[in-house]
Structures are given as C-alpha cells and as structure tokens.
C-alpha cells in the first residue's frame, strides 16, 4: 500500500470517532466546571439550567480543592492503584517463573490460574465481600469462629490449658469498615488482575534466550542472579505494558468500591465525582477535570515508557 491518502482514509473513522468521544463530553465537562450548576435548588432555581449567566470562574475548583473528601479521594486512588500494581507485578512475576517449566498438569494449572481474569468486577466484589470476607457468615468469619472454638477446647486441658487461657479470642475483621474497605478492594482486584500479569509474563518468558541462560548456569550464576540479570531485563517491556494497561483500568475503579462499602473509607476520584454528580454538577465537573489532569500526569510517564520501543 503506497497511497498516503488511502492510508489516511482508512484511519479516518477510528480517529474521528475517538475525537468526538473525547472532545464533546470533555468540552461539556469543562464548561460545567466553570458555572454554577445544580440539579435541584429551591433557593436558586436559575442554577438548575446550565447557562453562561451562572458563571462561577474557578469557584468550583476552589470549592473542591478545599474539600477534605477530595484529598482523601486522591490518596485512596493512588493507594489502591499503587498497591494493586506492585502486588500484581510481583505476584505475576513469581507465578510466571514458577510455571515456566514442564511439570505434570501444567495445562490445568494454567487454566485454573487465568480464570479469575474472566470474572466480571461486580461478581468479583459480591463474591469476595459476602462469601469470603464477611466477618460472620463469610469464610473469614467461619474460620475465626472455628479457631476460637478450638482454642476454647484446648483451655480445658490440664496443664496446657493454663497456657491457652492466656490467648485472647480472635476478632474477625470487618472489611466494610472505614479503615479496611480499601484493603478489601486491593485484595479482590489483585486476585483478578494477577492472572493478566501472569499471562503476559508467561508469553515473554517463553521467548527468553535459553542458550544465554545455560551459559550463565555453566558460569556458576545462581538462580537469583540469573533472574535478576537475565530474566528481569528481558521482561522490562512486558512489565511496562502490564503497568500501563492496569493503570488505565484501575484509575477508574468503581463497581468494587460501590459494592464493598459504597465509598465508605475507599472513596476514589471517580466515586467522589459520582457523589457530587447526584446534585452539584459544577463541583462534579471540576473534580472530573482534576481527575483528567491526574490521569494525564500518570499517562505521560506510562506512555513514554511503552511508546519508546513501539515502532521498532
């Protein structure tokens, strides 16, 4: 295909669609972020229609900036995305190396391992917060209750009983509480996305130079230094890609947060925007623009990391 204009023509539908998708709603958000715009107001009914007459300048931005919830939401966003990225990459690497060898049932192990990736976020959250993490009826609650019962039984033992009676009863952790709900989200998303990291790393490990590795073994390099000096550099690009794709998905986490605790303790930026949007569209839009700025700061780093070698 030599024809430049034909090449452009073929790219046009995709480019135009994405351009509209990006510019129209974003333009509206930008506009709303500079005006007073609420959905219901008895006192000031004129604020309920978007119009230039309600111009507020940077007022919405100031309002959001001075809102404690905003900084908590940024903290939560960064905490959750950061923890998930570190956990999935480390676990993904470890598991990919672990199954990068021939052993009986490897195919089944692979199938079992990648399954969580196919689970939809809503089901993931419902499953973990109810059936597994619930402090009374979930497996966590049952396990804690079982342990307590066991310790209780041991207390009646002669001699040893005195030792066990010093043990306190275990308390199950409520993962819907303010302090812990972010960890519940981190846990369930890590469970779902580690398989994705494993998938990508596994494929790249298979393309690793085996002769180089054997030479290293003959030179007496131990397993750790082989991993550190040969495998890890080889996985540089896959790691960058795993981080980028996950960052894209996790910056907009929503369903898990909604289902775990309705934003109690784990509210991130998208969730905060959703809360504002139930009435104060101006503030929601200003928060949205902040979120876009944050995403862009992160995107610049990530895209540069991935883009460097894209065209070779």
């Amino acid at each position: 295909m030599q024809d430049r204009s034909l090449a452009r023509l073929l790219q046009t539908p995709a480019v135009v669609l994405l351009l509209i998708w990006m510019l129209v709603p974003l333009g509206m958000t930008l506009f709303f972020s500079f005006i007073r715009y609420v959905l219901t107001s008895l006192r000031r009914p004129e604020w309920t229609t978007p119009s230039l007459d309600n111009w507020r300048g940077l007022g919405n931005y100031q309002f959001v900036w001075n809102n404690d919830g905003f900084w908590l939401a940024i903290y939560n966003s960064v905490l959750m995305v950061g923890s998930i990225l570190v956990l999935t990459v480390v676990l993904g690497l470890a598991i990919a190396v672990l199954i990068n060898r021939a052993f009986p049932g490897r195919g089944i192990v692979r199938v079992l391992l990648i399954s969580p990736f196919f689970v939809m976020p809503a089901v993931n959250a419902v499953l973990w917060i109810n059936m597994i993490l619930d402090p009374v009826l979930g497996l966590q609650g049952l396990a804690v209750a079982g342990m307590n019962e066991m310790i209780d039984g041991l207390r009646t033992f002669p001699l040893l009983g005195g030792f066990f009676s010093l043990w306190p009863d275990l308390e199950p952790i409520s993962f819907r509480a303010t302090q812990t709900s972010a960890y519940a989200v981190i846990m369930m998303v890590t469970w779902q996305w580690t398989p994705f990291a494993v998938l990508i790393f596994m494929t790249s490990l298979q393309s690793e130079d085996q002769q180089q590795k054997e030479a290293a073994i003959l030179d007496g390099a131990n397993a750790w230094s082989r991993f550190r000096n040969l495998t890890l550099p080889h996985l540089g690009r896959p790691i960058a890609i795993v981080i980028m794709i996950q960052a894209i998905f996790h910056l907009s986490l929503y369903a898990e947060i909604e289902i775990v605790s309705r934003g109690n303790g784990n509210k991130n930026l998208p969730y905060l925007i959703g809360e504002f949007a139930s009435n104060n569209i101006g503030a929601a839009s200003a928060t949205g623009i902040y979120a876009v700025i944050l995403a862009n700061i992160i995107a610049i780093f990530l895209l540069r990391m991935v883009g460097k070698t894209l065209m070779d």
Partner: protein
Amino acid sequence: MAIVAQETKFARIFWPVLAWIVALIFFFPIFWLVLTSFKTDADAVKPEYLIMFQPTLENYLNMTENYDYWRFALNSVITSVFATVFTLFVGVPCAYAMAFNPSRHTKDVLMWMLSTKMLPAAAVLYPMTFLTKNFLGIFDTHFLIILVLSLINLPIVIWMLFTYFKEIPKEIIEAGKMDGVSTWGEIRDILLPLAWGGVASTALLCFIFCWNEAYWTVRLTTTEAATLSKLIEGNRAPEGLFFGRLSAVSTAAVGPIIVLGWFCQKQLVQGLTFGAVK
C-alpha cells in the same frame, strides 16, 4: 539435557507442587462461588453445611423468576457481540494502514488513541447522560451501549492489531498490490489469514472487556439495555441474605466467559503480548 539434571530431586517435586497449590488458591473463590450456588439460601450461611450439604438446583431453576436473568444475559450477548464486531470493523483498517503505511505521525496518533483510554469515565458521565437523555434520546438503548463499548475498547484493539500486523513482512502485502488486488481484498485475503491468531485473541479480549464492563453499562441504562453487570450490582444482597441465589446468578453471569476463556486459552497465551515479545 544436562542442565535440567542439575536440579535436585527436592526442586523437581517442590516447585510443581507449589505451582499446583498457588493455582488452587487462585481458583478457590470461583470454586466456592459455584459450590455455594448449589446450596439453599438457608444452608449457605450455616457452618455445618460448609462442605457437606444437600445440593439443590433450586437457585438455578428460580433464576428467571428471582432475577429475570435471561433478559440481562441476552442484552450482554447482544451488546458484547455487536460492539466487538464494530470495533474490529473500524479497528482493522486503521491498524492496517498504520502498520503498512506508517507516517511520522503514526506513533503519536497511536499514543493519542491510548491516552483517550486514560480519560476518567466519571469525568464525562454527566455530559454523556445529559446528551443521550435530553438531546439524542438514545439513553438506555442497545445502540448506545454498543457504541460506548466500541469506543472504550477501540484504542486497545487498534494497538493490539497494530503490534500483530507489524510483524508481517511488508513484501507479502506489496506482492498482492502488484497482482492488482484491491485494498479490501488485501485485508481479507492476505492480511487476515496471516494475522488470524492475533485478530482472534484481540476479538476475544475485546469481547471479555465488553462483557465485564461495569461503569457505562450500569450508568447509561435503566431497564431496556441493562446487562449482567447491572443485574449483579443492583441485586447485591445485604449481609448474609440470599447467598445461594446470588451465587447462582453470579455463576451464570461469569460462567459463559470463563468457559470461553478456557477454550481459547491457547490463543490468549500466545496472542496476548501487546507487542511485548519480539
């Protein structure tokens, strides 16, 4: 091989066993979900029926009555299938042009496309609701969901396709040109057969992302076009209630995709590289 023989007997047993344990731990939550789906709501929360219980199909038989499962499932199938087809329809020509006739801007265009994925959905939710409800009148229609699912997956699809197409030698495509094959003919008869594995795994991943999408599908629908994500999010039980029936409908929501994933795992394992493997 000599190298392999160096492994101690301990290592030969220990690492595979560890791999099996890790795999079982990762699969356990899904196993537990399926197991719970065969318990009655009452049994599901009783410790004495943890593993030994009277299995029942009641939850599955009542699924239509309790949750209207099939309507949501049908919506999921329709939106995911059409969105995947449409995304590929727009994405393949674009990636083809980028891979075989790159200009100095191609990289920037690709990066820009990916950056649209970074746009937080929540930031534009209100305008989207506003536009589709008040102006376009397409709120809660299949058309809207298909369109949105296509748009959010288009960047990743184009990127994946681009990395596959790039690996195909230009000469093969150009040979077709000499023979006077049309552009459409080139794509259909030369490119697609050569890049079949890559296109298949792209389509599969796109379909999975569509099926599991839980932001737009929940917030841009009410009843007409609501998908399984909306069904589950809307019916998550308050603590301890209905674990059995909730597990059954959840299993039915993720089951088709998991089974599809199992069947296609070879394609996924080989194809899901995002150009990371040379």
